[in-house]
């Protein structure tokens, strides 16, 4: 499996494939933006933020800001930021299912945990494995919870036409694949080349997530139009 991860996909490095496909959901999101649902718009902002964070954390200039040179501090900041954006996507589900302030509590607790992790846990200059592990766990729980809610309320019928289904499926698959990887990343980093190889799993999953998000932007749920009121005209009903 490691050999496969080190191989190239149609001549591309997996990382390049992931980085380039990050643009896909943003382009798809821009297209017909006015027709998007509130969840699709929130997802668009998440995708834009994810691109900015991803490219910024890879910039040489950004890495050189710290001594020792590292982009780990950015990840300590980006993880709660992206989590907050995801909570906004699931905000309605959380408020409808639990209570009005559960999203605020969730964000507050996660930010506090991230600060603790950067200060006393993994450390600011190490990969934020614990924060990302908790992030993945919470996202998996949200996705499963949302699926359960859809199953009990039956509010959606044609799933393939619903953006929320694609978002949820992408989130569940991406975070369940990354959960153990992120938790053990600091351990794997003892062997840099091995960890680099294994981390490509995350990159492949990220590629899949981008595809799911792109589909979520392309499909639009059926809009129920109001019944037109017939008007009387000299020639009959309009």
């Amino acid at each position, binding site marked *: 499996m490691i050999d496969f991860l080190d191989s190239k996909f149609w001549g591309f490095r997996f990382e390049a494939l992931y980085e380039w496909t990050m643009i896909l959901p943003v382009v798809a999101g821009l297209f017909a933006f006015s027709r998007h649902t509130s969840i699709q718009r929130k997802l668009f902002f998440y995708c834009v933020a994810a691109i900015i964070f991803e490219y910024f954390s890879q910039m040489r200039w950004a890495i050189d800001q710290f001594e020792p040179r590292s982009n780990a501090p950015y990840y300590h900041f980006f993880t709660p930021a992206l989590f907050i954006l995801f909570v906004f996507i699931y905000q309605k589900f959380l408020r409808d299912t639990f209570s009005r302030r559960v999203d605020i509590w969730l964000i507050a607790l996660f930010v506090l945990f991230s600060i603790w992790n950067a200060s006393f846990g993994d450390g600011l200059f190490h990969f934020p494995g614990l924060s990302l592990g908790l992030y993945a766990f919470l996202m998996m729980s949200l996705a499963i919870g949302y699926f359960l809610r859809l199953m009990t309320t*039956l509010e959606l019928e044609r799933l393939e036409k619903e953006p929320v289904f694609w978002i949820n499926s992408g989130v569940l*698959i991406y975070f369940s694949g990354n959960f153990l990887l992120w938790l053990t990343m600091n351990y794997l980093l*003892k062997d840099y080349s091995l960890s680099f190889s294994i981390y490509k799993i995350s990159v492949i999953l990220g590629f899949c997530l981008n595809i799911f998000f792109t589909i979520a932007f392309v499909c639009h749920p059926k809009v129920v139009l109001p019944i037109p009121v017939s008007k009387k005209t000299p020639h009959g009903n309009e």
Partner: protein
Amino acid sequence: METNEISAESVNILLAGIVGMLLLSVALVVFFIVYQRRIFEQQRIRLAEEQAHQKQLLTAAVEVQETERRRIARDLHDDIGSLLSATRLYLRQLKPDSSPEKSASIRAESLSILDEIIQNTRRITHDLLPPVLEKFGYQAAAEDLCERVGKSGGMKMIYSGGSNQRRLEDKQEIALYRVLQELVNNTLKHAKASEIEVVNSWQGDLFKFRYRDDGKGFDPLTVKSGGLGLKNIESRITLVGGSLDWKSAPGDGLEVNISLNNAN
């Protein structure tokens, strides 16, 4: 130097864990899709069944109305119409030059037929809406009906109405009375029963009606949807917001239970 710290076994376990979780999540998504589709399919079937049932009830309601109209037309034609024709024939014989004896005989015959017409009209209107039902309500009318059937002989009638004089809504009383009439009629015609039991009771705001006969019963599976009679009954009860269930088996008579929620 540190490379040796990560064993191949631990890497394999990690990879297996990651693949396992991935497979689990994909399985969850697939399960959700399949489960959701199945539920919607079941809902569609249930909806179709419900629509078919509603259609049957509507057909039964129309059938009840038509039967009722046919009966009234028959009663008017056979009982009133023929008697009026007979009266007309008698009265046509009255002529200015008729003898007083003949005139007196025609008058007497005509009056006799007119009395019969009045009696028949009273019977027909009584059948349509018994005065006791209108004046004293369903329970009194049901008791009266049971008493009349019991007195006619050949059938033991057990009626239990309780002491609560609370009344149902007018339309509920009429519907329930018609149901009772239909049930008694069916039992007398087809059931070969020796005993009928009618129990009316109140449970809070819920009016409970139970009808039972010890007749030959029938197999619900062979009689489609309980036959038109029971469909009519269901239609009547549904229209006044009540619920009905019934059971029957060959040799085991018929039992019908009706619940009506009273808004009065």
